[in-house]
């Protein structure tokens, strides 16, 4: 018996439902959430929900001295902080017309490539962890720690180095450092076949990652994809070769590409890039002892360091993609406006919303991680 005031309620079809994916979730790369609309376990619609890590960097930088901002910029992207310092420093150098000594340029290149190695090792571990393969995560994290130890010796800090400053680098490389770096690279090379056995050539990984979150080259160009994610679609675009900065025009390296554009291709491109980074580092190690000279151009008193009117845009190939800093000066001791063009914002918001549609729920974490987006940089 139904009561007199009974009114049937119209529900949406029960197999469709909303799922809040995060901000605490298995695709964990930071504090970042997705609102997923599911039908069964198939994703119908995705909205990115960011803003958990917003700190207002671009505003904070306007209130600090040119040199003080060096302490702030690496915190924009946590796993790969060196390109941030380097790109900002280069913008300040263009504004102030500072000539960077050659030795400092080589040391900066060394730091950039070491940072790329750490970021990629962390990525391998993280991508495996999203599939539940935790042994690979343990390996990736512990191998990354070996490079972090070298960073600690060089800069004094494990994660936030604040080593590159406008005009050069903070201090010279310690004695015997290049030898130890070379040994670490040897070790990483011997580890790669083991990583292959466990992860890259593992049929379980291949079956899971192949076809997950595919992009076509046209879509990638339209959505503003850069970096390894673009090269996984078959487009050999790399700023180190196409718009060389520092000493990259004197170095030899390949630009690895894959044509599939799915999660597996993105991982394999990063594996090849790790090999290329080791190759670049070996060239730097061979060349650096013969480059003599100062490591820093003399700077005026930072409290009264007025940069002339003007603006500068610099860009770097970070491990995530193209990273740019647009810095405007109005002749003061502080920037008038800074804009950060981060690669992750494109990847984690517009690309992720598109490529997860039609995929299965258990692959969402994997696709999210395979784009290697960095949430602190998305929100800034």
């Amino acid at each position, binding site marked *: 018996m139904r009561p007199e005031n009974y009114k049937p309620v119209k529900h949406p079809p029960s197999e469709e439902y909303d799922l809040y994916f995060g*901000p*605490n979730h*298995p695709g*964990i790369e*930071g*504090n970042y959430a997705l609102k997923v609309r599911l039908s069964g376990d198939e994703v119908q619609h995705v909205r990115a929900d960011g*803003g*958990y*890590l*917003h*700190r*207002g960097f671009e*505003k*904070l930088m306007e*209130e600090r001295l040119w040199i003080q901002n060096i*302490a*702030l910029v690496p*915190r924009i992207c*946590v*796993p790969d902080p060196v390109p941030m310092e380097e790109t900002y420093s280069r913008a300040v150098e263009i504004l102030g017309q500072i000539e960077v000594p050659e030795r400092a340029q080589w040391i900066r290149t060394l730091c950039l490539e070491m940072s790329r190695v750490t970021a990629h090792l*962390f990525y391998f*571990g993280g991508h495996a962890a999203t599939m539940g393969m935790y042994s690979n*995560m*343990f390996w990736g*994290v*512990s191998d*990354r*720690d070996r490079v*972090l130890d070298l960073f600690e010796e060089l800069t004094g800090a*494990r*994660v*936030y180095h604040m080593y590159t400053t406008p005009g050069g680098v903070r201090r010279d490389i310690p004695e015997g450092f290049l030898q130890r770096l070379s040994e670490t690279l040897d070790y990483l090379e011997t580890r790669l076949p083991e990583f292959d056995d466990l992860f890259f050539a593992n049929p379980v990984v291949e079956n899971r990652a192949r076809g997950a979150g595919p992009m076509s080259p046209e879509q990638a160009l339209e959505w503003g994809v850069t970096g390894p994610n673009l090269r996984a679609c078959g487009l050999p675009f790399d700023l180190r070769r196409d718009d060389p900065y520092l000493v990259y025009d004197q170095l030899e390296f390949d630009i690895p590409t894959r044509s599939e554009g799915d999660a597996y291709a993105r991982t394999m491109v990063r594996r090849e890039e790790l090999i290329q980074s080791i190759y670049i580092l070996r060239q730097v190690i061979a060349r650096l002892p013969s480059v003599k000279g100062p490591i820093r151009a003399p700077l005026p008193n930072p409290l009264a360091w007025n940069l002339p009117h003007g603006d500068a845009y610099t860009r770097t190939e970070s491990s995530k993609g193209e990273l740019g800093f647009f810095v405007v000066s109005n002749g003061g001791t502080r920037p008038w406006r800074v804009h950060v063009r981060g690669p992750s914002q494109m990847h984690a918001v517009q690309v992720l919303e598109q490529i997860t549609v039609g995929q299965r729920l258990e692959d969402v974490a994997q696709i999210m991680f395979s784009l290697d987006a960095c949430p*602190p940089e998305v*929100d800034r």
Partner: protein
Amino acid sequence: MNQQNFPVQVAPLESCREPGPEERSMLRKVLDRVGQYCQSRSLFVLHYCTGCGAIELPPSMTSRFDLERVGMQPMVTPRQADILLITGYLSVKTLKRVILTYEQMQSPKYVMGFGSCTINGGMYWNSYATVKRLGDYIPVDTYIAGCMPRPEAIQQGFLDLIERIDGGRAVAWKDYYRNYDRYLGHQQHLFGRDWLTPTDVVGEAAHYRLAGDGTLGPHTALLDQYAGYHQAWGVPREQYAELEASS
């Protein structure tokens, strides 16, 4: 927010005095000792990375520094976790989630502030988007200084927390019940006067007899607009005192 804005007369909850350690019976002392020993040696850390400090957690948890040695593991659900680790700065949006998460966790629960940002704002001391002092919003047991704290510092912080739990000194979670009005006031200052969490903290304080002088106040009086929202204990707020007296 001063007292004049809240002309509400608040009847205090009947507070329950906790017996001091020396007043307890021998059996209670032995049971407490065993309980604390067990608690301190099996801790689950909630795997919620609120800020950049999360990058040093994988090295601390995995093979190199290996926190499993001291009985710690990450845990994905708040209801089964013991430690809430606040890894770094908190934006206002994250703080809401942190408070909801904290109130979901089961007692005894411990909060660890990680990095300078939770202590005084750190690098973002003048940011418009972040919270400067974590201790205003939820009670914190220990802090680890540094930006970013090294894995060794994290380990030392955890060992310090274990020692405090073992000695029965990590009781910040009780402070949340005893001084709920103060914490709620800070939360309302940030989120507005209509701020409400799904957990009935006042009801829990009465139920577990952890209410103190600061449990009710002008800020909790604002929660009366949601009277009847919390059905957790099925008892109207006016009858809390009776409930306490009868139990």
